């Protein structure tokens, strides 16, 4: 049976070892390139012949555009539309990363904690900077909810600080764990199909088919969750709570 975590192995395609650091173009980088290429192709095809009444590809592109735009409008309001390009990029990057991972043999870059962690940390710092830029020192009130009795401050403030600081971890681990576990599960069950033979393998095969459907759903859902949490953090930074 194949090692179920072997699929996460980073393999250099174009080695680029600079001595101190290794910046090789790897299978992960390749998957990112394909994701970016696909997003660009989708929007290129969708915007090639722009018309007031959209064609097929334009409708698809507009659907993605509107989906993200509505998410921001609903969760952050119109002030959040300033950050629309970033949020759309984030959604496309995570969504295509997850979805490309569902193609057999493809690498899933969102199953690496360093990638999701970098994205989450970037969002965390960006949101924090936006918060302080908008509210100055007043942004520290984030750590003490409005209307709470002052006596509860010694308990509430540490809790709020911890929950604020844990945002990047929960955000990155959620995506990484979902992707990793799903792919491991598929690999393990697919291994059973082979080892149980023609008759006994039918049961795990059926399970693999079902879980594949589930994984597609999770791939889309986790991209949505990642972006909507970003919107919620952004909303906190812009409007506080």
């Amino acid at each position, binding site marked *: 049976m194949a090692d179920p975590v072997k699929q996460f192995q980073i393999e250099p395609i174009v080695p680029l070892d600079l001595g101190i650091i*290794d*910046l090789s173009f790897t299978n*992960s*980088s390749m998957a*990112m390139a394909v994701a*970016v290429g696909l997003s*660009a192709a989708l929007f290129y095809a969708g915007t090639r012949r722009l018309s007031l009444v959209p064609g097929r590809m*334009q409708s698809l592109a507009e659907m993605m*555009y509107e989906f993200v735009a509505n998410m921001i409008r609903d969760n952050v309001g119109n002030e959040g539309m300033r950050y629309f390009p970033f949020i759309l990029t984030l959604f496309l990057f995570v969504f295509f990363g997850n979805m490309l991972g569902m193609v057999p043999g493809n690498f899933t*870059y969102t199953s690496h904690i360093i990638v999701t962690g970098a994205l989450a940390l970037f969002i965390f710092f960006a949101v924090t900077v936006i918060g302080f830029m908008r509210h100055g020192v007043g942004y520290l009130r984030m750590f003490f909810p409005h209307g709470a009795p002052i006596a509860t401050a010694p308990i509430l403030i540490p809790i709020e600080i911890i929950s604020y600081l844990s945002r990047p971890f929960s955000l990155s681990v959620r995506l990484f764990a979902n992707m990793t576990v799903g792919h491991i599960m598929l690999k393990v069950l697919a291994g059973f199909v082979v080892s149980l033979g023609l008759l006994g393998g039918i049961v795990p095969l059926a399970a693999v088919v079902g879980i594949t459907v589930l994984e597609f759903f999770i791939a889309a859902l986790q991209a949505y969750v990642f972006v909507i949490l970003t919107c919620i953090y952004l909303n906190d930074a812009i409007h506080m709570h």
Partner: protein
Amino acid sequence: MPQFDPSSFASQLFWLAVFFTLLYQVVIKLVIPGLGGVMENRQRTIDEDLAKAADLKARTDAAIESYEAALAEARGRAQALLRETGEEIAKQSEARNREVAEALAQQVAEGEARIAAAQAAALDDVRDAAADVTAALTSKLMGGAADQTAARASVDAVMREAR
């Protein structure tokens, strides 16, 4: 697990930054101006069309209103005219009735006067005749000429008694 092998971290972070930035550029240069523009344009077209429709509807409403106002005014005028004409006709016919009635009453009075004159004339003739008859009878019965004046007086007395 390969996820926790730090040797690949630098490469992954580097290419993540590269491709994320690249995609961001695609979004900024291609998606936002293209799609965003056309969608904004569509929204504007829809808004303009809606505004135009609302304006036309307002104008239609105004036209209907003015039409109804004109209709009501015309109806009111027609009713007033009808009422005035009716009153005038009634007044005229009343006046005519009165005139005719007066004329008739005058004619009746004239006729009555004529009848009364004729009656008086007839009575006079009767009295004359009766006086002549009385005078003639008296002279025939008693002989000699009868006193015309006395005969007339006695006839008058009898007639007064008979009345």
